[in-house]
Each structure stands twice: as structure tokens, then as C-alpha cells.
């Protein structure tokens, strides 16, 4: 399977990328690490007329402390995320992404823009309350991670917009737990717990069409419930879909257990 032909543009700046996307007039796609997009091209599920390769745009590959958060450039590779020490939750999550040859190419911005509901970074972004910086034809805007993910592989990004960076708040306590059949597979369920500014936030990935807050579980904790109580409440509120990897009932049971374990890892809600 080979990609359909496309026009290839390699901008040297965000401004050039904006111009190229505007010129593509809705038929352009941003190419970053290519670990999700290129398979779609190879299978011809996507056939953009123009590929805008942002890999050589300078200034988008830094990880830096920014107050009580860590700013991650859109082009930071998963391997670099796994190796950095500024944000331990992101480092742990990144180690679960794919395989070595995927982590060397895949990027933080690309993972969020692709919006796979089972992917690790989107769940971390929702759990920590991350803010995504987006460049567009009318300048720069920011969007909360929860407002970025609209559906499976669907975001609120415009055709001519480009994620340039993500600001992940630093949690005081956190837990990351993932269940996958084989190492490197997409998760059947990912549970991320982050205590940010005194507020415990729970996000569950792989169960619905977007990584979602488990608000019922958070409320149970706030009312003094244990980790097990909160996990059960989170599970009750889920509406998992079934596929060949797991029935809705199985996924719900798995989600309850993963949330419980993530809370225990975070040291929240007692011994579980």
C-alpha cells in the first residue's frame, strides 16, 4: 500500500506553515512525527493534496519549566518526553507510548492533534488540565485540552491551525496506569490521576470517544470516599463501547480497576 500523490511543503517557520496551510485551502495536513498520519496515508484513509512537514520548524522542540507547569513544544518526541525529569507524570506516560522506533519520531503535538481516545498524552492533558497553544490564520489562541477533543480522532482545530505547544500543570500527586494486551499496544484502558492546585482530577482513556474526566469519581473523593468508592463511581458513569478487544462490560470493569490503581499510586483515597 502506497500513499496517493501529494504536494510536499517543508516550512522553515510557523508563519510559513500557516501560509502553506492557508494556501492548501482545507486540503492540507500537518506532518509531524508521521506515526499516525502516514499509516492513514498508506491505507488511503486520508488523501490530502498538500502535506506540510513541520519537522524542521525551529523552536518547537523544547521542554521547560514555566511556573507551576511544564511547557512542552509541539515537536518534542516521545523519547525526549520519556527521558525528561521536569514532569514525571509525562515521563511515565511517554514510556507507555508504542515502541522505541515510534517514540523517536512521534511528537507531543501530533499525539494531541491526532486525538486517539486510547493514546496516553491526551489522557494526561485532560487529567492535568493542560492548555494547548494553537497558531492559526488569525494569530495565536489557547484551548483547554478538554475542549480540544471532540470525538475519536476529531479535534476542535481548524484546517489551517497548528498546535505549537502544550502547557501541562505539574501535579503534586499523580498516578498513571494503563492496561494493554501487549507491550506497546494502544491501551484498552488508561487511567490518569493528577492533583493540581489541591483538586484531584481523574481522566480515563480508551473507553469512550475522547479521554474524559471521571467527574463522578472526583466528587466521591471530595466527599470523603475511598479510592475503591471513587473508582466504582467513575465506572458507573462510563458508557464504554465494545469492540473485538473487549465488551462494554469488560471495559467498564477494567476502567474501575485502573482508576482504583491510579488513585492508589497517587496515594489518594487510602490503600484502595
Amino acid at each position, binding site marked *: *500500500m*502506497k*500513499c*496517493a*500523490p*501529494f*504536494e*510536499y511543503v*517543508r516550512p522553515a517557520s510557523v508563519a510559513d506553515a500557516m501560509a502553506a496551510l492557508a494556501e492548501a485551502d482545507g486540503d492540507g495536513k500537518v506532518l509531524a512525527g*508521521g*506515526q499516525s498520519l*502516514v*499509516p492513514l*496515508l*498508506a*491505507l488511503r484513509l486520508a488523501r490530502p493534496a498538500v*502535506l506540510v*512537514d513541520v*519537522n524542521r520548524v525551529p523552536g518547537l522542540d523544547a521542554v521547560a519549566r514555566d511556573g507551576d507547569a511544564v511547557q512542552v513544544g509541539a515537536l518534542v518526541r516521545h*523519547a525526549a518526553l520519556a527521558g525528561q525529569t521536569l514532569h514525571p507524570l509525562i515521563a511515565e506516560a511517554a514510556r507507555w507510548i*508504542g*515502541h*522505541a*522506533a*515510534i517514540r*523517536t*519520531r512521534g511528537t507531543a503535538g501530533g499525539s494531541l492533534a491526532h486525538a486517539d481516545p486510547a493514546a496516553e498524552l491526551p489522557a494526561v492533558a485532560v487529567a492535568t488540565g493542560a492548555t494547548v497553544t494553537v497558531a492559526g490564520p488569525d494569530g495565536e489562541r489557547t484551548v483547554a485540552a478538554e475542549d480540544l477533543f471532540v470525538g475519536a480522532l476529531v479535534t476542535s482545530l481548524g484546517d489551517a491551525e497548528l498546535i505549537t505547544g502544550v502547557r501541562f500543570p505539574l501535579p503534586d500527586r499523580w498516578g498513571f496506569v494503563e492496561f494493554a494486551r*501487549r*507491550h*506497546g499496544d494502544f491501551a484498552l484502558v488508561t487511567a490518569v490521576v493528577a492533583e493540581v492546585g489541591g483538586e484531584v482530577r481523574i481522566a480515563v482513556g480508551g473507553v469512550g470517544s475522547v479521554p474524559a474526566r471521571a467527574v463522578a469519581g472526583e466528587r466521591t473523593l471530595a466527599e470523603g470516599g475511598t479510592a475503591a468508592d471513587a473508582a466504582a463511581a467513575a465506572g458507573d458513569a462510563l458508557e464504554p463501547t465494545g469492540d473485538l478487544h473487549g465488551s462494554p462490560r469488560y471495559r467498564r470493569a477494567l476502567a474501575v480497576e485502573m482508576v482504583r490503581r491510579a488513585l492508589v499510586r497517587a496515594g489518594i483515597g487510602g490503600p484502595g
Partner: protein
Amino acid sequence: MKVDFRVNGERVELDVEPRRTLADALREDCGLTGTHLGCEHGVCGACTVLVDDQPVRACLMFAVQAEGTAVTTVEGLAGPDGRLHPLQEAFVAHHGLQCGFCTPGMLISALHLLATDPGPSREKIREELAGNICRCTGYGTIVDAVAAVAGSPVPEP
């Protein structure tokens, strides 16, 4: 579109369509058919090569993206005199291949693993090779081969 990079130490200048993957360019334009293509969408790991010493699925990278990089394929493992790389020797000695289709990707992944961690446990070897699919061996002998080079204990056959 013109692209200029190095493959196994030699300079390569090509004029390719942008949609040509690095894997196809290596095989078709450079004649280096040691890089195998299984799934062509990033699942099987057979096409894994090193780009600037980092493992990359060559089917998920376009050749034009390799501009200015140094690529290492399985053909670059043996010495100039044709002497096999210790990993290749170990794959032979431990029967780490049967049909050989996955072997180039396995070797490149193992090469990167040993470059980053010279003494990985069998568990770590299994984890790191999880991105390379083999349908013949059942993986045990592949792990044995890598463990032998890493100096980890290898069970008697």
C-alpha cells in the same frame, strides 16, 4: 524532489516523488533490499532502520525527510571485509531466525537497544523487541541471541 543523505556511510543523492517512503527509496533506488517491508503501515517493524542513530520505521518516513541525515541499514552491520556483526553471529549461533523476513528489523532494534543499554535483562530485551513481529521463531531464540551479545545468561538449548 531532490534529497541528499548518507546510507551506511556513503553519500546518496536521489530525485524522488515526495510520497516515496524511505523504505522504498532504500530498496528500489539504492538497491539495498535488506530492509524488508511487511505491513507498510508501521506495525510489523521489519523495515526498522537507524536515522542519525535512532531507530525509525522506514515505511513511516518519506525519503525527502531524510535530507541531511545518516541512515544505517542491515547492510551496514557487517564489517568492510564482510565479517558479520556480533549480533548477526549470535542470531546464527542461537537460531534467532528461520525465514529471515523480520531479521533486519530485529537486528536494528537490538543494535539500538544495546547502544542505549549494554546489559539488558531478558525482560527488557522482550520489551524492546515487542515492536518487531516474528511469525517463525516464537521469539525465544531471538531473545537468546540478543542476551548472548549482552552478556546475559542464556539457557542451554
